[in-house]
């Protein structure tokens, strides 16, 4: 009996053991091994950020100035940063859908901020501002929405509350988020991203501002988000990415590892990126948009996790340039109605018109697309002006002359690559904006709305999709779109400038304009201004009050050494404050009449 009992017990133990040997419900912690260790290299220090309240001291003016920079930083937390300056009871309480758009204002450094001391120890700050624009969450600066020219707020010690700490507080803040343009300059980086134009022939730059607090590792992620978010409002000529394009699984673009390869993984709508051409366009767009990314070495484009393209960024950009520039820009001057190539500085190139046609020229607009040269000459015919245009490889041999004569005519400009059928030119004559083509010098008036009549100057961007013009003494930028041989100027956007009575404008870079006018002291000045009007700086200032009649700049300095700005005033062309004289004429290009010492006009061929 006992033997059987033992045996049965053994069987029971076995069966229970068998029943127990499943996947355990609980177990100890089992160590598999060491995990990976993070790169212990020193973390990149976060970029510059505006000073906080507590370090802003007790001097009301400095405090007020710092308060006006507080919004700078990543968009989502602008209110939080500004609120740190504000006494708790008066803080902003943004709505859920308020993305924290910041009103960028230009404040005169000296006289912009006035402090009025009150009896109760507080100070009333009055800020005179020029509304520059609205910095949106996507980094673009849009047209200003506020009209106020003056804001005032109260700063002072906090009401006696033991939990509040010392220092000044903003007791009565302005109703909107304000940030000075200085803060935009100091705490943001300019970063151009690119969108294809409607024809898919050229990339349209779109200027964005990236907070310096964003680490470089996140740069690509931000840029990609911008690209996916589409172009800025006013760039109607630019085309957004195919609809439905998004980062794969909302992913970040990982920071590159040692190899420096950035992987961009996109999800696109089925059928949106069918051809290699589309893919290449997308790749080009991204690789140019990431131009300022220091970490980028190779770019890998993945669509739906499938690797589609891998290229070394620099090589690819070299092979797929933004603009069809053939070498450095060349400068020309007009001496006694003839165009002469100029040197010093700059490389001399032959004049791209037959010598027989090189007479009676007032000014000219030259454009080069590869070897193809487009020429628009403003010629004097008695007291009126006519336009002569032509194009050809290297030299425009046959020139057409416009039938109509005009009382005045500014320097014509060419829109590069604006569409098929050769370059399109723009010219201002009789305070109107006209368009012409290389084959047809007869002017067609360009109609547009949103800006006053009385155009006095026009300038075309390198990409040929944007123009800047001065109308009614104010500066406008607009996107242009070719339609049936003509041109559409769409929704011009006025830019706030500190100069008044503007007389001339030209592009000084992809996203940079130079504009001539009178400053607050009625002194003649030439200022550089961003294409969105947000940042402005003085380029040249004169004592004389004669208006600058024309500006010619070489905007290509992004790629080669910049050439100096030339301008014309009183029928004399200047470069770098000195008039352009015959000594600058390239050797062998002939001599102007001895009486003519200085050039009456100067322009670039690029």
């Amino acid at each position, binding site marked *: 009996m006992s033997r059987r009992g033992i045996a049965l017990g053994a069987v029971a133990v076995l069966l229970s053991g*068998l029943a127990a040997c499943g996947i355990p419900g609980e177990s100890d912690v089992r160590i598999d091994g060491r995990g990976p260790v*993070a790169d212990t290299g020193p973390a990149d220090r*976060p970029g510059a950020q505006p000073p906080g309240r507590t370090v802003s001291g007790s001097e009301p003016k400095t405090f007020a100035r710092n308060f006006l920079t507080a919004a700078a930083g990543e968009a989502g937390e602008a209110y939080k940063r500004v609120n740190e300056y504000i006494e708790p009871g008066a803080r902003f309480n943004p709505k859920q859908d308020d993305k924290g758009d910041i009103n960028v204002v230009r404040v005169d450094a000296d006289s912009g901020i006035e402090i009025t001391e009150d009896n109760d120890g507080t100070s009333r700050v009055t800020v005179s501002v020029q509304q520059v624009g609205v910095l949106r969450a996507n980094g673009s600066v849009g047209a200003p929405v506020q009209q106020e020219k003056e804001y005032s707020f109260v700063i002072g010690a906090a009401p006696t509350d033991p939990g509040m700490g010392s220092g000044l507080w903003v007791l009565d803040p302005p109703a909107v988020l304000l940030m000075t343009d200085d803060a935009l300059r100091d705490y943001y980086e300019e970063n151009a991203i690119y969108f294809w134009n409607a024809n898919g022939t050229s990339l349209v730059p779109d200027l964005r501002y990236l907070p310096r607090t964003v680490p470089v590792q996140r740069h690509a992620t931000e840029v990609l988000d911008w690209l996916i978010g589409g172009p800025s409002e006013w760039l109607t000529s630019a085309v957004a990415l195919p609809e439905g394009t998004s980062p794969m699984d909302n992913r970040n673009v990982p920071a590159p590892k040692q190899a420096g390869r950035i992987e961009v993984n996109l999800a696109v709508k089925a059928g949106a990126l069918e051809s290699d051409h589309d893919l290449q366009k997308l790749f080009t767009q991204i690789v140019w948009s990431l131009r300022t990314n220091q970490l980028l070495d190779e770019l890998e484009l993945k669509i739906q996790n499938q690797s589609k393209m891998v290229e070394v960024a620099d090589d690819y950009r070299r092979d797929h340039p933004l603009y069809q520039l053939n070498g450095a820009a060349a400068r020309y001057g007009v001496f006694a109605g003839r165009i002469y190539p100029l040197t010093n500085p700059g490389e001399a190139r032959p004049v791209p018109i037959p010598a027989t046609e090189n007479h009676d020229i007032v000014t000219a607009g030259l454009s080069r697309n590869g070897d193809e040269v487009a020429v628009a000459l403003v010629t004097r015919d008695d007291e009126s002006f006519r336009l002569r245009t032509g194009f050809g490889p290297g030299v425009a041999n046959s020139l057409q002359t416009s039938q109509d004569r005009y009382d005045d005519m500014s320097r014509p400009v060419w829109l590069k690559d604006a569409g098929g059928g050769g370059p399109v030119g723009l010219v201002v004559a009789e305070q109107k904006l006209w368009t012409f083509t290389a084959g047809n010098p007869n002017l067609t008036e360009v109609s547009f709305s949103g800006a006053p009549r009385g155009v006095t100057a026009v300038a075309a961007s390198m990409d040929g999709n944007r123009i800047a013009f001065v109308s009614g003494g104010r500066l406008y930028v607009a996107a242009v779109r070719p339609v049936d041989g003509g041109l559409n100027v769409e929704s011009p956007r006025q830019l706030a400038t500190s100069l008044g009575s503007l007389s001339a404008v030209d592009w000084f870079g992809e996203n940079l304009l130079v504009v001539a006018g009178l400053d607050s002291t009625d002194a003649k000045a030439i200022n550089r201004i961003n294409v969105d009007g947000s940042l402005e700086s003085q380029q040249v200032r004169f004592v004389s009050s004669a208006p600058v009649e024309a500006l010619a700049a070489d905007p290509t300095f992004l790629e080669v050494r910049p050439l100096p700005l030339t301008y014309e005033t009183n029928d004399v062309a200047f470069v770098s404050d000195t008039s352009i004289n015959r000594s600058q004429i390239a050797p062998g290009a002939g001599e102007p009449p001895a009486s003519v010492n200085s050039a009456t006009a100067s322009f670039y061929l690029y």
Partner: protein
Amino acid sequence: MARTLTSSSALLARAAATGRRLRRAGSARVARAATGLHRTWRRSLQVRVVTITLVASSLLVGGFAYLVADNITEIVLDNATSDVRTRLEDGREYASEQLSNHNTVAEQGLRATLENTVNYLAGGDPAQLGGVVVTLRVTGVAPATSPQVDVGGILTPGLEEAVRGGAIAHQFRTGDLFDKGRTKYLVYGSPVPTRLGQVELYYFVPLTRWDQIADASRATVLATGFALVVLLGLLSGLVTRLVVNPVRVAARTAQRLSAGLLDQRMVVNGEDDLAMLASSFNQMATNLQRQIVRLEEMSRLQRRFTSDVSHELRTPLTTVRMAADLIYAERDEFDPAVTRTAELLHAELDRFEDLLTDLLEISRFDAGFAMLDAEPTDLVPVVHRVADRLESLASRCGTPLRVTVPETPVIAEVDPRRVERILRNLVGNAVEHGAGKPVVVVLAADETAVAITVRDHGVGLKPGEEKLVFNRFWRADPSRARQTGGTGLGLSISLEDARLHGGWLEAWGAPGEGAQFRLTLPARAGDRLTSSPLRLVPADAPLAVTDVLSWTVPTPAGGGTAEPPGADRPGTADAPTPLDRPTVPTGGTLDGPTVPTGGTLDGPTAPAGGTLGGPIGGAPGGPTVPIGGALGALDGLAGTVAPDEAVDAVPGGPAGPRTLADAERSEVSR
């Protein structure tokens, strides 16, 4: 108060008694079941083999099944672990890439990155992806979990600590993350290399699928093992049956053979080992049958010879008797020496006649001619009659004879003649060996049996003699051989008489304590005895001694299943089986009487002891030899008795004068 106490204590006692009874009943049931099992275990080879096979195969199969199931589980676990680990490593890679965008925990987009990352890693819809939960923990930031469940119940501090310490670690946990019941989870954690500081990635992968695989395989293994065990049990049962059945047939056949059906044979099938066993068995049976038939024939011849000799001796004895009676009647006229001889002749002739009568009687028993003439008889007068008859002998020996009988008649279906003979023998023996001390005869009865004990206080019996007293021609003291007492067949005949009734005749004795004989008879003829109304061991006997020395000699009719009174003593279990006895005295009976036939006829004047002893010891080559030799196999006692008596016979001559006194004392035949 006292009454209450008493009653309550009585109640308590009753309750305790009830409890005890119940307990006893329960344990009795268990014990009965255990006994039953034990009996089955002992009796059935098949049960034993099947049980052993089942147990052994269960252990073996269980062991293997454990190994196999364990192995499968191990493989499944390895699979799951490596699966999840791969997933974790991929996820870590991904998380590391995603978090590479961030330098500090204070960055604004970090939260979104964390959530996007865990959402991507968890794969979106938890219902579709088997409930995998992914958590990213960054020191200083609230952990991001996808789907958004509380993993605090499953993520242990130990694991967190291990991962925070830079190790990849995992743990099995059971918990309920989705309120859908408890599920086993494999929790895998790994640090994520970032510039942010400490970031840990955890995967909570439900093991439902793997668990199912493990369970299914385990169930399969179990079922297979169980089926195997059952199959093995059936197989062993079948095989054992194949072997045991012929053995059972052989056992049955052997039983029938031993019951006397000597022509029983086994069926021989085929040529295997069992067939060999059957044929060998059959051969053995044939040989035994031949031998037994031969022996029976011989025995029959012997019995017939004894009977014939006894008969044949009667006629000359009658003549001699008549002559001797004549001489005895005229003895006063002879000279004293002759007178003495005549008297001696007369006495020895009486003995001779008694001997012949007894021999005839016992040969009738041997031949199976003894018939029971049972009739309802009141035993009280029988006992009185015997006592009265032996009163004179008792008084001559100076032995008081006391009789204790119930006042009411004791009616039993017995043969009064045989009962009287038994009693005469017992009481006579008691008086003879009573050494002058009282002899007590007690009669008692119950519903089923009547019993008579005869107690003396003489020298008693030595250990082992309780059994020997019933042997033919056995004497307690060899030196008194044939000089006193009767024929030496008295107790043998009494035993045969008792057996004829289906009763018991038993003896008890101890040296110096005297002896007690008990006759137990069924109240109704043919009934089976189960107990005796009287104890075999007298109440005044020393207990320790009786324990060792008492003997029970059950008769064949009474032996076997039922235990005689006094069976509570350990000695009873060693009582000889009924088969032991009949054969032994038979040899003695046959051996003994045959001897004098040659010897006594040769010299009637020879002293009795010498006459009987001489030929036995001195004529080994005589007619006894072939008989003794032929019965050698069966003969145990005769061979030993004869030499003893031969040795005795040597001093038998000088002891001649003593023999007369002995003869006178031995009027009661033994």
